[in-house]
């Protein structure tokens, strides 16, 4: 209080924001957005849509890092925007916000996630059990190596950040990518699952885990601190063992 409207707007710090408009072809548009405390990149995008450009398209749902729908390219780096604070991503108040890389752009900041999830299906990312709901619940001891491997990889929210960060996805469009392979790894280690061999065949085929360069961009970028690189190395070893044993 005690500060007039004129003074406050004169002192108000502003962010210089460039936002992608269009689909594959388009342009960056420029906006000035007031700087706030604890402001997230998603807050910035929402401000633009509510106050400056109602036609701007973007996607989010939970705002708390659970749904995986808000990922975008922020200053050249793939991030979940709802939990990326502005002060973590820019030092000079400039932001460039673009759609996630390696996916078709539907419009503005919205990408078509179908190729990403189609690859989960190709990697046999669906659990296949042998029991029914009337059987007793399986007991999986928490300290077995398999269960630990699952624990380390299971919290994926399907945000696509790792997929956008992986160079091999850009070079080989058929490459399954870190998230689908990470999912396959959790199932290969699920002692209740019965389609292990089929899954190993799917991930050893061309464009599967053997194409990974282990350069760890995915692990570096994953907001859930998952290390898909480690899971993919595990898949490579499992595939090699199965190939030597004549099972593949």
């Amino acid at each position, binding site marked *: 209080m005690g500060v007039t409207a004129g003074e406050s707007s004169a002192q108000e710090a502003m962010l210089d924001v460039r936002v992608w408009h269009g689909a594959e072809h388009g342009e960056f548009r420029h906006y000035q957005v007031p700087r706030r405390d604890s402001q997230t990149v998603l807050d910035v995008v929402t401000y633009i849509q509510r106050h400056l450009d109602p036609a701007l398209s973007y996607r989010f749902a939970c705002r708390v890092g659970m749904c995986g729908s808000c990922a975008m390219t922020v200053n050249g780096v793939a991030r979940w925007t709802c939990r990326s604070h502005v002060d973590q991503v820019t030092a000079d108040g400039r932001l460039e916000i673009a759609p996630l890389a390696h996916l078709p752009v539907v419009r503005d900041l919205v990408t078509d996630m179908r190729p990403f999830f189609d690859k989960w299906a190709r990697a046999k990312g669906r659990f296949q059990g042998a029991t029914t709901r009337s059987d007793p619940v399986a007991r999986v001891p928490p300290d077995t190596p398999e269960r630990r491997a699952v624990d380390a990889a299971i919290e994926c929210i399907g945000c696509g950040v790792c997929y956008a960060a992986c160079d*091999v996805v850009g*070079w*080989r469009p058929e490459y399954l990518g870190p998230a689908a392979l990470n999912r396959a790894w959790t199932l290969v280690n699920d002692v209740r699952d019965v389609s292990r061999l089929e899954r*190993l*065949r*799917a991930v*050893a*085929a*061309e464009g*599967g885990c*053997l*194409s990974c360069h282990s350069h760890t961009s995915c692990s570096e970028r994953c907001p859930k601190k998952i290390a898909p690189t480690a899971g993919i190395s595990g898949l*490579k070893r499992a*595939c*090699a063992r*199965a*190939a*030597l044993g*004549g099972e*593949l």
Partner: protein
Amino acid sequence: MTPARRDALLWLAQRWSAAVLALCLAVHLAVIIYAVRGGLTAAEILGRTRGNAPLAVFYGLFVVAVSIHAPLGLRAILSEWTLWRGRSQAWAMAALAVLLFGLGLRAVWAVVQ
């Protein structure tokens, strides 16, 4: 053989050939550095290599590892950077393997015969 098994075995072949190459290269470089202390002539080299069976075996192994490793690496690079895939690419890489093997063995033969 399923394509998945073939690809997994080729991947293993590339890993193992890389391990052999790393070892061979280390020995190769160490021997060169040791041997050239105080200069070396072609005649001196040939004097040591002619009829040297262990040397022939060592470099023979080196050549085998190169002939396996290089075409597999090139295959991966081609698949990433060009649109050339499939059967014709596989045959070309097989031809490269034979070529490297032939040229390599010829070179080994030239110094040990």
